[in-house]
């Protein structure tokens, strides 16, 4: 049913633009204990690799004034288990399709993992995580070199039928260069921004708080950086953009869509408030009325960035 909150993505009409971001919502079904998750547009699943991974040593979390650093290190039970068990549990409580988030150590692993998800009925699209700053290999380096980013994209695209979203790293000199490269390689959409490489130190021990030293910074503190990068990317490419980075409320959703996002992902806020996505969806009509916005789809990219 089309309504004032609806947006189109990959030919589907989504009820609203709100999608929980990968890594902040598990495999989704546990949030069904808290509210009816069918109100969400979709769900981006926890980052998945071909083989199971334990992830990094603890501590994996460090707090910041307006956000947090995480270094989970892609803990996941492996793609086959995700499709065979986690998606089965999710399908019982979620009647829509989800977005798989795929990470890997090699282009081959990206392809193999994507192929597994490509066959799953409950998957709408595959998001390639080429920007995770928390694991050596399989992470960020795929997202900081335009050639490698394009190669991963092209390889996965030629192996799967479902739409492919490429998730970009902000830890680059020019994000639009990577965006253009993956668009050229056939990406169906771009999501950005992933976390920023960051660090906190325990003042009592002088050691990094995060067990592996550094991690990815997310939350309200990165929102102004995300807005800029979404606006710049929107100017550089024609494919849809899924905007994320520090969204905490319905006003932030509007700002992100003005900057060029067709849909948005809410991340860290889910960890602070398990009802965050529900509250944002419920608050959007009020905020749209206040800002005299009738249809949310009309505002995508309304802000133009000069220069």
């Amino acid at each position, binding site marked *: 049913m089309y309504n004032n909150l609806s947006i189109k993505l990959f030919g589907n009409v989504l009820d609203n633009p709100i999608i929980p971001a990968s890594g902040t919502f598990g495999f989704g079904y546990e949030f069904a204990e808290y509210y009816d998750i069918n109100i969400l547009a979709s769900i981006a699943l926890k980052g998945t690799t071909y083989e199971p991974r*334990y992830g990094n040593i603890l*501590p994996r*979390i460090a707090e910041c004034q307006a956000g947090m650093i*995480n270094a989970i290190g892609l803990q996941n039970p492996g793609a086959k288990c995700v499709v065979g068990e986690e998606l089965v549990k999710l399908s019982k409580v979620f009647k829509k399709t989800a977005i798989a988030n795929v990470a890997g150590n090699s282009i081959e692993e990206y392809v193999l993992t994507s192929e597994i998800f490509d066959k799953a009925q409950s998957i709408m699209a595959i998001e390639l995580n080429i920007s995770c700053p928390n694991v050596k290999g399989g992470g960020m380096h795929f997202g900081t070199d335009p050639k490698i980013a394009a190669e991963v994209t092209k390889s996965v695209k030629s192996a799967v039928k479902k739409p492919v979203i490429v998730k970009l790293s902000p830890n680059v000199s020019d994000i639009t260069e990577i965006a253009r490269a993956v668009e050229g390689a056939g990406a169906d959409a771009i999501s950005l921004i992933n976390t920023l490489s960051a660090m906190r130190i325990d003042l009592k021990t002088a050691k990094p708080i995060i067990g592996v030293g550094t991690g990815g910074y997310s939350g309200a503190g990165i929102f102004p950086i995300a807005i800029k990068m979404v606006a710049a990317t929107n100017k550089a490419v024609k494919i849809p953009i899924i905007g994320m980075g520090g969204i905490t409320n319905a006003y932030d959703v509007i700002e992100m869509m003005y900057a060029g996002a067709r849909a948005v992902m809410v991340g860290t806020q889910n960890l602070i*408030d398990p009802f965050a996505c529900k509250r944002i969806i419920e608050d959007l009509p009020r905020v749209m009325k206040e800002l005299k916005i009738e249809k949310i789809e009309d505002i995508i990219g309304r802000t133009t960035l000069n220069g």
Partner: protein
Amino acid sequence: MNNVILTTSLNREISKDTYEIILAGDCADNKPGQFVEIKLNGFTLRRPFCIAHSTDSTMTLVYKVVGAGTKYMSTLTYSDKLDVLTGLGNGFNTMACETSRPLLIGGGTGIASIYNLAIELKERNPIILLGFRSKEDAYYIAEFSRLGEIHIATETGELGFKGNIIEYLKTSKIDYQYYYACGPMGMLRELFKFSKNGEMSLEARMGCGFGACMGCSIKTTSGYKRVCKEGPVFLAREIVFDV
């Protein structure tokens, strides 16, 4: 899990840097060993706290001032409101020791969690072991005395046995089949080496507190588990302590 707004009734220092805060509001369905996550003004992440005691309408938490968040918390006063997630995690399995006299072991703020369990197990006259650093750190001694047979250890030797509480357990001839423990990781590790007949509540630096972020995953004999979701209480024998 419930997301509720609770109101501060009382907030007072009960031993050195250790505070007891009593909150009023909807506090139903909190079992011994479960915990709460509190949003504090000006801090991004919620803070986990274990529950010393709860009724349907009140909840007592014990916390130590260790950083900026708990320092701020210590300034809360009558009528201050808090956004709280309650009923988090899985608590102690009180059925596990049905055939024997329960042994409860607590250290530091973990003692609060043991207190809630002692109340529940009171009828069975539990043996209660409490470890503190020194006399000025001790709290809830009178309260525990009413619930079972208490033994105390302090590192300074000012109260009870001189040394840590696990050393005391080793040297004493306490007769038990199953223990419930909550305390700092060092204490639990010592206990684990000595005996695996029981369950322990773990502490961890958490992101969310309700299973979403995988920030607090530990290795167990049956795979990776989240302290906040499958825990914080685990069977001692399933914990892999070398991680």
